[in-house]
């Protein structure tokens, strides 16, 4: 079966985001960017399924500006076969991305879409669920294990109380949680090979998708800072402070 993975370019997970002084957003100029960690897990999953023989071709898709090609190259270096870049400088919100990915999934006639469960920049956690709705497909979110069983997938999901087991009919959308796998580092030869793999460029217009944002960001601000605390010298002093100063025990 053919698989589509979505990959998003975000501020590197190890960089602390800084709010712009004019309150219009978060500083991204001269900030290290990387593939969203959950998208790495999604890509790794597709590659492992191909290595196991249940997947025949992996198409990586990314929606956004020209720089997203870098993120697609990372996916190709990890093992995706080819890329689709939906190029636009417009702000894209999850509903718009779900519509774009729907067109790509239909165009490419894939049987499975694997996405990260959320992007670590806007923390929406929506795109996979909305894509499944628009396609009328089944969904298995927050996956920590996936097994192909004929026309169905057996999926273990990470839920608030522990783990949940579901079976979803193919075609399906799966979103990856942290424990699904540990993504590989691309080897140098694979990074070189990835430069030769094809990337198609499309636009929202060509796909007939209206990407107008539904949410307008009025202001982005820093959360209230915690006031600096103190260091205590001993456990006894700690317990005394908790009891008599903070009065929480």
């Amino acid at each position: 079966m053919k698989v589509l993975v979505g990959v998003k370019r975000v501020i590197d997970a190890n960089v602390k985001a800084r709010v712009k002084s004019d309150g219009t957003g978060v500083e991204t100029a001269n900030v290290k960017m990387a593939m969203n960690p959950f998208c790495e897990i999604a890509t790794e999953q597709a590659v492992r399924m191909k290595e196991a023989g249940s997947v025949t071709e992996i198409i990586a898709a990314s929606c956004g500006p020209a720089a997203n090609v870098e993120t697609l190259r990372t996916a190709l270096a990890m093992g995706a076969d080819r890329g689709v870049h939906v190029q636009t400088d417009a702000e894209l919100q999850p509903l718009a991305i779900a519509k774009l990915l729907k067109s790509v999934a239909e165009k490419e006639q894939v049987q499975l879409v694997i996405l990260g469960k959320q992007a670590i920049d806007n923390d929406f956690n929506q795109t996979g669920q909305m894509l499944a709705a628009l396609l009328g497909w089944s969904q298995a979110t927050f996956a920590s294990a996936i097994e192909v069983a004929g026309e169905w997938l057996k999926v273990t999901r990470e839920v608030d109380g522990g783990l949940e087991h579901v079976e979803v009919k193919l075609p399906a959308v799966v979103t990856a949680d942290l424990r699904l796998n540990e993504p590989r580092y691309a080897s140098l030869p694979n990074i070189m090979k990835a430069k030769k793999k094809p990337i198609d460029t499309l636009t929202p217009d060509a796909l007939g998708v209206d990407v107008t944002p539904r949410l307008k960001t009025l202001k982005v601000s820093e959360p209230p800072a915690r006031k600096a605390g103190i260091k205590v010298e001993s456990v006894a002093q700690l317990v005394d402070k908790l009891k008599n100063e903070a009065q929480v025990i």
Partner: protein
Amino acid sequence: MSILFLVEHDNESLKSVTLRVASAAAKVAAVAGGEVHALVAGSNCAGAAAAAAKIAGVSKVLKADAPALAGNLAENVAPLIAKLAANYTHVVAASTTVGKNILPRAAALSDSQPISEVMGIEAADIFVRPIYAGNALARVQSSDAKKFMTIRGTAFEAAAADGGSATIEDVAPAGDAGLSKYIGSELTKSARPELTAARVIISGGRGMQSGDNFVMLERVADKLNAAVGASRAAVDAGFVPNDYQVGQTGKVVAPELYIAVGISGAIQHLAGMKDSKVIVAINKDEEAPIFQVADYGLVADLFKAVPELEVELDKALQQK
């Protein structure tokens, strides 16, 4: 037009987060107008519907009772919500794994862009939500006719579980879409309070070195009636199950007292606990970022400090 919220339940009784969702829905109603209605979707869920009818501020409970609604399968619940949404301006659910799984699917069926993890309600169309692991707060305005939102439970007080007398109305459930099957759950059994509802939490990180060492934290937890949590590093290392994880993509908590033991304090972990009232950090590395958010920091070897803490707590609690 009114506000509809999704009740989380086990068919018999309500999950505690539901009371917080109810109070958020009431806040929306206060600025947008209309009544607050609750949707109980499940299988043999009359008990949960009766409990929802007692929540203060709820005027109507819609009960959708069908075998296909067991197990909270999004493929079956979302179409029901999307259909009911015709009569509502806002649809509200919790930012739990249930709410986050179902609500965006229902929103997409209604061509609406949902708003996740709402922490503040400023107007019928203006909401505050965290982005970048809570390192920034975004104030957003929705232009959608119907607003779908998940709320962050810790940002809203719980509504009173008693005092309401809503009518219960049966609604025709959508059938089984035939796309998915709920097979079963492996839920962590614990006599301790739930992480998201606990007054005190003690969490362990990579510094705990093994799952067996979490027994030390459990002993302290027993003294304080606390829940036990963990950082991602401790879950990834297999020390404890995934449902212990506190952080950006795990559970967001805001207890009265949060004790972080052997946790360095990655931004992703801080995102899940920095709204706690009092934070204690115990770590042998005095440079650990966790100390920047801690009210009380103790630079010490946790294997000495935690057993000592157990003894000192005993003394302090006896003096009460």
